[in-house]
């Protein structure tokens, strides 16, 4: 039991505070990129739906790139490309930019699916009642289509939350990076990783359960 004794003397209350702060940073970067990415993604999804040929030729392949290249490569690439462009971004900024674009590429497909899920006759009926195009989008398509793809969107959001761990390669101290730092100091990888993993799990599991139940109850 020698190692675990030294662990308890090394891993003190301040380290929990350190991990907690890192967890808040994970939450902050995920929330920021998911909200920005969702707004952007809905716009892209709408453009893909309405843009027909032009969007299929320009926007779709561009978004496809972000889904076909590993996120970690995108992050390193952008982090090293920004200074070439004359931008001076810290790891947090670069992480938010790439995670936002990555989220929007995933949400665009979800959003397009949502718009397609709303029947054409329904929208025509709305328009013939004198509702304008934007009112139709706001009051008909958004509530009905949004409901249809909400579980899929939750899946994307949780995926981005988990993928935000990759921002650690740029040096941003989020939860997983913080656990790496603590492991280096305390030489107690197992317990610290369990704590970090438990945090992700505690965040992700209830939300995914909630979405699955919602999907089930709406399917009926």
């Amino acid at each position, binding site marked *: 039991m020698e*190692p675990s004794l030294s662990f308890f003397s090394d891993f003190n209350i301040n380290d929990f505070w350190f991990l907690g702060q890192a967890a808040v940073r994970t939450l902050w970067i995920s929330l920021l990129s998911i909200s920005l990415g969702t707004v952007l993604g809905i716009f892209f999804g709408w453009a893909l739906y309405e843009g027909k040929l032009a969007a299929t030729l320009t926007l779709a392949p561009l978004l496809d*790139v972000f889904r*076909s*290249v*590993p*996120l*970690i*490569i*995108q992050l*390193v*690439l952008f982090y*090293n*490309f920004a200074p*070439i*462009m*004359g931008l001076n971004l810290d790891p947090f900024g670069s992480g938010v930019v790439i995670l936002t674009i990555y989220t929007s590429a995933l949400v665009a497909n979800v959003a397009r699916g949502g718009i397609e899920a709303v029947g054409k006759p329904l929208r025509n009926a709305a328009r013939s009642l004198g509702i304008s195009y934007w009112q139709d989008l706001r009051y008909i398509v958004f509530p009905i289509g949004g409901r249809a793809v909400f579980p899929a969107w939750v899946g994307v959001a*949780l995926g981005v939350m*988990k*993928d935000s*761990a*990759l921002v*650690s*390669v740029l040096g941003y101290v989020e939860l*997983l990076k913080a*656990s*790496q730092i603590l*492991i280096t100091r305390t030489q*107690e*990888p*197992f*317990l610290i*990783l*369990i704590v*970090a*993993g438990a945090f*992700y*799990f505690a965040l*992700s*599991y209830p939300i*995914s359960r909630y979405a699955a139940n919602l999907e089930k109850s709406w399917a009926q």
Partner: protein
Amino acid sequence: MFDYNFHWRPVLKTLPDLLDAALLTLEVAILAMLIGIVIGLCLALIRLHMKGSLYWFATSWVELARNTPALFQLFFFGFGLGAFGLHLSPYLIVLTALSFNCAGYLAENFRGGFLAIPETQMRSARSLGMTAWQAYTRIVIPQVFRIVYHPITNQIVWCVLMSSLGMLVGFRELSGETQFFASRTFRIFEYFAATAVIYYVIVKLILVASRILAARLFRY
């Protein structure tokens, strides 16, 4: 506009090495995929037909794989197991982590596939004199395979992208090799841009191959 000179020569000179590393990436991804399919199938069947401790084992596997970041799983197999004196080689770390992850995600796909097959299929096969094994392998599984074919394709792509995390545990697949050369020549942007292109091509090749295979498999 740019105050930066691009140097592509070192990238071109080491391109054969990068392509070799790309083959290693493919090898690990496909191997992990095969292991993941076998384990995922077992997990799905356990979750559908068993009760008790075996059910809880399969369920916790699936939920852990789906609700924690892939990077966390990689670190866990890489460093966490070190606490028990189990030190895997980088190749094995990536392979186990990928297989663990894939098995969890595929198990849910398989479960959905099995649930989509009406129970009458099984019963009529049995009443025709087939044994349970025969009915499963000749009637149920081929139909399930058709349902999960596209999710499996997506999972292979995801597997290839995720194997890029190997560079964080010192595995010299495509990303690791890129990082190695990039840190030797300081041409980080050029190397990672080339790697992004290689990943993109690999993913597109997989999708094309899967589409051709689907056209041949599902002719009827």
